[in-house]
């Protein structure tokens, strides 16, 4: 479980994240949604420790990550898997080397065991035969899937995904969403996904947090989000004419 308490972060006097508090349960896929520039990615960076919040607490199973010493922080990071927006695969390494990298760094696994684990993770993301390819030889969707395979290779307790669907077609987006959900259920991880894709919200949003004006504006699930009275959230969801008409039709 991950708990955020009053997270504040500002850059050059400009508030990016203000008093954000919420809880993300284990075995649940939680989505943080909001407009571009609303502070979602900064919030995620505060959670994973790439940016230190000005004030607040980030509790991983009750332990405040901001008060941990270097050793504890390093141990915590070994339990974190992250899927970056662009995949962030290491260009100079093959797909298999990308996946075995965290295993080679932090486990005592033999090379054979590492390769077996890589094959398992690749088969889990339906890329069994891509082990010898380089990232430059992969499509956008394949890169995302390899990044997921790399993230789950060390068996993490926490999975973070920064806009996993950006730049993907709707069909591949749904595939990635389903994969994230399946993996979360299978490995009982605490998963947080940053997105502004409403398809993802409806597909996997067991918990949804809406960030607006750098604050937590709304919290609910994919079942309650479409019926909310929250004006800002409605403006965000029903931004297109098509969806507005669909909503009005449903009402009448």
């Amino acid at each position, binding site marked *: 479980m991950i708990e955020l308490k009053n997270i504040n972060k500002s850059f050059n006097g400009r508030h990016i994240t203000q008093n954000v508090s919420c809880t993300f349960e284990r075995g649940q896929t939680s989505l943080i949604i909001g407009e571009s520039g609303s502070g979602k990615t900064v919030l995620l960076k505060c959670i994973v*420790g790439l940016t230190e919040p000005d004030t607040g607490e980030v509790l991983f199973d009750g332990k405040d990550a901001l008060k941990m010493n270097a050793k504890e*922080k390093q141990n915590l990071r070994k339990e974190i898997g992250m899927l970056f*927006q662009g995949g962030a695969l290491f*260009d100079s390494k093959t797909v298999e080397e990308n996946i075995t990298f965290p295993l080679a*760094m*932090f486990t005592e696994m033999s090379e054979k065991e590492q390769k077996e684990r890589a094959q398992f993770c690749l088969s889990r993301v339906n890329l069994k035969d891509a082990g010898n390819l380089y990232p430059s030889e992969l499509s956008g969707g394949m890169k995302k899937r390899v990044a997921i395979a790399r993230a789950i290779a060390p068996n993490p307790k926490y999975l973070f995904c920064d806009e996993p669907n950006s730049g993907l077609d709707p069909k591949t987006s749904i595939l990635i969403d389903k994969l994230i959900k399946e993996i979360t259920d299978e490995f009982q991880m605490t998963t947080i996904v940053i997105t502004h894709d409403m398809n993802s919200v409806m597909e996997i949003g067991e918990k949804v947090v809406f960030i607006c004006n750098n604050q937590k504006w709304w919290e609910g699930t994919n079942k309650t989000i479409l019926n909310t009275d929250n004006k800002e959230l409605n403006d965000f969801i029903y931004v297109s004419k098509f969806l507005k008409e669909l909503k009005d039709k449903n009402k009448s």
Partner: protein
Amino acid sequence: MFNRFFFHIGRYFSMLQRVLTVPGKWSVFKKELFHEIDSLGLTSLPIVAIISLFMGAVITIQAAFGFTSAWVPLYAVGYTTRDSVILEFSPTIISLILAGKVGSNIASEIGTMRITEQIDALEIMGVNSRSFLILPKIVACMFINPFLILISMFLGIAGGWLLGTFAGVVSTYQYVYGIQYQFNSFNITYALIKTVVFAFIIASVSAYHGYYTEGGALEVGRSSTKAVVYCSILILVFNFILTQLLLS
């Protein structure tokens, strides 16, 4: 301006403090080190060889052209070529060329990793990204550059002999006599000390500029250019300091 200067100095040494740590896993470090020796050192061999051969030849011809007086023996051509190549040309000029080739390579590689979030990915995994990325490059450069410089010395002197005799400005006997005349082996030690210091400058300063790249492709290009410029200036400054310390 001074604030920015001290800011960069402070950040550079703070980076070095994180770089110069015991590697997390020796087997991974060894693999990275051999990879860097190959990509930073061995791939530089052709350019070093070509430049050394021709520079040695040019030094020989220029020396022969200058020594027209009957009072200067012709073996002075070999003597001059040897000392020019060993003392200055190979360690300093080749290091400046390596600053351009290797320095821009390091800065752009690490800079690209920064803007494509690969460094963030390393940090998230719990890897000390500075040490993992930069330490193998520093060690590889400090290990392989002295060999490159020794090869450069040999080829520079050989180039002088080849083209000097081919052009008919000096005979083989006079040239060989000249390169053996009053040979001081400390000159080689001096050149190699300089090379190791320059190698450290090339790898660490370039890595610094790459590691702290912010922005996009344009900034990666700028970091790469800055790395070459600062490496070149520092090589010239340290060349003066080391020469003063070791030869005066």
